[in-house]
């Protein structure tokens, strides 16, 4: 007789499809997944503790390194939190440029996600095309702030510099050609039978589970919960733009793909509106040379490409925060992984990890 029993195996921390140093302890019954336990902390750098010994402008380069594929969203959230604490009013031109940057970053981040997710599921071509378009966005960022990954693009109270000459035209050129390129990715994937077979009905997350686990971002919206921080708690004048929040129906991997594809289109729409109505004026508010906010605490959330990115600052005295806390969307979304994977096959885990779009720098902080 054959002996059958449950088997424990490790997936990661060095595994090509875990997108970083994520270790999963799998309990398998043959090919079927009985349980998944994520083990995290391999990329822990103690950013929250490091922040307590730095002045406020010095913390911004640290926020670049939380979610390193969407650093501008982190910059925006962090600067927003400090500005809220200090009661600063950011000039409208800076707010609009920040929106343009954040939405370009959302497109760049989703492109990276789409390329690697498709690569995990065996569609290699999309990877090359998405990285070609992502490169165009990185060139725009390089022209704006000089860096291509860890931007440090904003300053408390606005921006370091105004956009360079001709930059808005380059952005317009990009959002002009991008929808046709996105159509190409859709031609390659949306109706492709291998893609459908790998994604439809895989990793279903019910709306009540999603809300109960605190999941946010496209992963939450794909489950049918209509919640977007940009609309629920508008920041950086997002209330002045018109955009739709795409919502999925089934909460499976395919829906998360569809929601992100639609988000990229909506980002183009927001960028176009922001460039059309870009106000004139300063890009930096009057900020004292030494930033000493009043004592108090503040919580500020932004919608990063992964979900609800929160910054909680407790300030007591001096130039440094007393306590800093980052609410990382990837960290919270990761705990939905066992719920999505239980009872599925081991190959589906790869699809599900890809679809929740975690960044391990954000998970471990």
């Amino acid at each position, binding site marked *: 007789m054959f002996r059958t029993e449950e088997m424990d195996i490790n997936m990661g921390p060095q595994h090509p499809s875990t997108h970083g140093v994520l270790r999963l302890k799998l309990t398998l019954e043959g090919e079927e997944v009985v349980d998944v336990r994520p083990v995290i902390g391999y990329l822990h750098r103690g950013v929250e503790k490091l922040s307590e010994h*730095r*002045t406020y*402008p*010095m*913390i*911004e*380069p*640290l926020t*670049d390194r939380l979610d390193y594929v969407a650093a501008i969203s982190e910059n925006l959230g962090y600067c927003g939190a400090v500005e809220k604490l200090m009661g600063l009013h950011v000039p409208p031109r800076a707010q609009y440029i920040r929106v343009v940057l954040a939405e370009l970053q959302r497109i760049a981040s989703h492109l990276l996600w789409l390329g690697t997710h498709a690569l995990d599921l065996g569609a290699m*071509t999309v990877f090359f*095309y998405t990285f*070609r378009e992502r*490169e165009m966005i990185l*060139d725009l960022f*390089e*022209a*704006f*702030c*000089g*860096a291509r990954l*860890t931007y*440090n693009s904003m*300053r408390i109270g606005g921006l*370091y*510099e105004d956009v*360079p000459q001709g930059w808005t035209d380059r952005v317009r050129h990009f959002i002009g050609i991008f929808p046709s390129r996105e159509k*190409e990715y*859709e*031609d*390659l994937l*949306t*109706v*492709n*039978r291998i893609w*459908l077979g790998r994604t439809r009905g895989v990793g279903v997350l019910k709306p009540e589970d999603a809300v109960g686990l605190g999941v946010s971002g496209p992963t939450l919206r794909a489950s049918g919960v209509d919640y977007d921080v940009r609309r629920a708690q508008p920041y950086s004048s997002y209330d002045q733009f018109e955009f739709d929040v*795409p919502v999925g129906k089934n909460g499976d991997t395919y829906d998360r793909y*569809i929601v992100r*594809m*639609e988000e990229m289109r909506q980002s183009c729409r927001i960028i176009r509106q922001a460039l059309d109505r870009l106000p004139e004026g300063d890009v930096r508010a009057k900020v004292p*040379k030494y930033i000493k906010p009043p004592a108090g605490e503040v919580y500020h959330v932004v919608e990063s490409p992964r979900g609800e990115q929160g910054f909680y600052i407790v300030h007591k005295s001096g130039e440094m925060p007393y306590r800093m806390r980052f609410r990382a969307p990837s960290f919270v979304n990761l705990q939905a992984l066992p719920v999505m994977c239980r009872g599925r096959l081991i190959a589906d885990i790869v699809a599900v990890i890809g679809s929740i779009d975690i960044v391990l720098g954000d998970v471990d902080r």
Partner: protein
Amino acid sequence: MTARPAAGFRDFLKMLLLLELWVGLWVTLKNQFRPHITVEYPRERVELSPRFRGVPRLRFHPENGEELCIACHLCETVCPDDCIHIVSEKKPDGKGKRLVSFEINYERCCFCGLCVDPCPTKPLTAIYMSHDYEMADFKREGFVAPLKVLLNGVDPKDYKE
């Protein structure tokens, strides 16, 4: 939102004819004729934008060729990585300070550009983010750049060692 593929006779026919496969192959065929975007790095280089943040360096006055730095220690104070180390002394005539040594430890530097922000010299800042980005070395000491290197840059190295 894009409609989900529904099950019906027409969809069955589409499936039978492998329609989605031909659509995908048409996309890849179109892309065959687009210009190449790969840059063959050591032989050709990408064009950097004027604001590119490379290795931080110091600069001379463009006209009289003197050091611009007034040894105010602001960049040292604001540096988040503590990679700048400045030693200064009083000028002989008693007015202001001048540099004795200025070191940047490139092992620690994160190229954030915060040191350029508070630099008080006008109109050009004394410290600036240069366009150099190739900084490999064989020894760790090579990453601590003294004043001479910061002002004049490094000579192109022979990598045959």
